[in-house]
């Protein structure tokens, strides 16, 4: 990381729900531009809460989130998108009652101030997901799980993000679609976007990730290059015995 400004920088991030205790307990993170960081961990380790806090859907109790040098910690989710931080939620990640065309239009309609958003970006994104643009009048709720995931990726990328947050993109997909989805994640990285990928499907995540961060009980348990993690290590990682 030395010498390269991080695309995503997180310092001392804490968050939780209501009056309950912290779910995310002080996470620090620097992610290099155009890399894929897989965030893995056991159920209840705070992965989804972490990524929701980054996206702004959950207010941080402490800490900062910086995207390409801009502190977005106090911005609304909508303003964070305009600052270059896009998010694809785990489920319900397209507007089922809007058509594919409307989903795509809406992805940029309220981002007029964002640099790089426009016809050129649209053309580039549609080239990444050619199957999306074929039936623009179809209700997005009628798409299959894999197709919806592609539409959700496309919508997020139309905002020309610096950093893309993906919350379990393989959830509920058949093995064939998991492979296609992970391939799409790689294509997204190759287009110049930094990807933070929260995944339960560890094997699938390790295949595409450059680095892995293991979360246990809301804390960073380990951060290593993905190639250094073997399947045999996983059980130990999840119980925070590694590192």
């Amino acid at each position, binding site marked *: 990381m030395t010498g390269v400004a991080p695309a995503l920088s997180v310092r001392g991030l804490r968050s939780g729900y209501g009056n309950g205790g912290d779910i995310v307990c002080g996470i620090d993170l620097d992610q290099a531009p155009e890399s894929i960081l897989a965030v893995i961990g056991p159920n209840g380790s705070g992965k989804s809460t972490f990524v929701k806090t980054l996206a702004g859907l959950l207010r941080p109790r402490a800490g900062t989130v910086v995207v390409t040098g801009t502190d977005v910690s106090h911005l609304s989710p*909508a303003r964070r998108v305009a600052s270059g931080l896009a998010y694809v939620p785990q489920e319900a990640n397209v507007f089922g009652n809007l058509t594919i065309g409307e989903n795509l239009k809406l992805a940029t309609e309220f981002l007029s101030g964002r640099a790089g958003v426009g016809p050129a970006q649209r053309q580039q994104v549609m080239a990444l997901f050619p199957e999306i643009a074929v039936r623009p009048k179809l209700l997005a709720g009628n798409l299959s799980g894999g197709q919806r995931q592609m539409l959700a990726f496309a919508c997020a990328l139309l905002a020309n993000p610096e950093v893309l947050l993906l919350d379990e993109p393989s959830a509920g997909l058949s093995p064939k679609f998991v492979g296609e989805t992970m391939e799409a994640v790689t294509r997204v990285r190759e287009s110049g976007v930094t990807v933070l990928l929260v995944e339960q499907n560890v094997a699938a995540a390790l295949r595409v990730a450059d680095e892995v961060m293991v979360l246990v009980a809301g804390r960073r348990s380990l951060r290593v290059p993905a190639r250094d993690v073997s399947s045999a290590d996983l059980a130990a990682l999840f119980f925070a015995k590694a590192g």
Partner: protein
Amino acid sequence: MVAQLILDGLVTGLLLALPALALTLTFAILHFPNFAIGAMLTLGSYAAWIANSLLGIPLAMAAVLAALAMAVVAMLCDFLVFARLRDRGSMTLLVASMGVSLILENVCRFSFGNSTRNFAIEVARPIRWHGLRINHEQLITAVTVVACVILMQMLLHASPLGRAMRAVADNPSLAAVRGVERQTVSSITWCLAGVLSALSGVLAGMDRAVDPLLGWNYQIPIFAAAILGGLGSPTGAIVGALVIGLAEELSSLVLPTNYRQIVSFAVILMLLLVRSQGLFGGKAVRK
């Protein structure tokens, strides 16, 4: 006789369509049934009455001013009450809307008393057409409501704002991460609800008279119309309003006219028993 009842029923339905549309919009986007809709209608009619009868402004202009005033009042209600309770769940918001309803109704009562008021409009002879008697008020209602419905449909289905409203109705969190500010959409929704309820207040005031219980008389039929159409469906609210209007008028063939509100209750009861999602509620795609 039946043709006249059908005509009157359609106009009654059109009168219900605007507040039913306002109710269904707030339900779809803000996720609670706004029990203050009747009181907003009443306050709108008083706002128009002040402009028309006290200030001498022509009724059409008075209606526009009332609509603007109610847009501000509705946004104020959101700022002071509903926005602060948004994360407390729909039941809390429902009860809060009952409180807002009481406040708005009693503002009218304390300010203008209980007596009925009328707009300063000339009484005109009804038009006779193929044996049907058509009042000028009915024509004004029909033209106003049809124009408002067309404009609302265009807004919802052919404008970025409409797409944003439908997106927030579908999934507010996802809308937020697609760049849509929920509070802005919420304020605009209240603004539209205020405008629609004020215009319906003017039409209701022309049909009856302006009094503190004007909106309350329409409250049950408005809810019946919105529920019949499928709460959250703008098209459903309009169709539901027309059906309720027709059913209420045609019920006078078999029921004494002072029992006509039974029809709305009966429709709500039947829907809850048979098709709780209403006529158009099932169309929403959920996967």
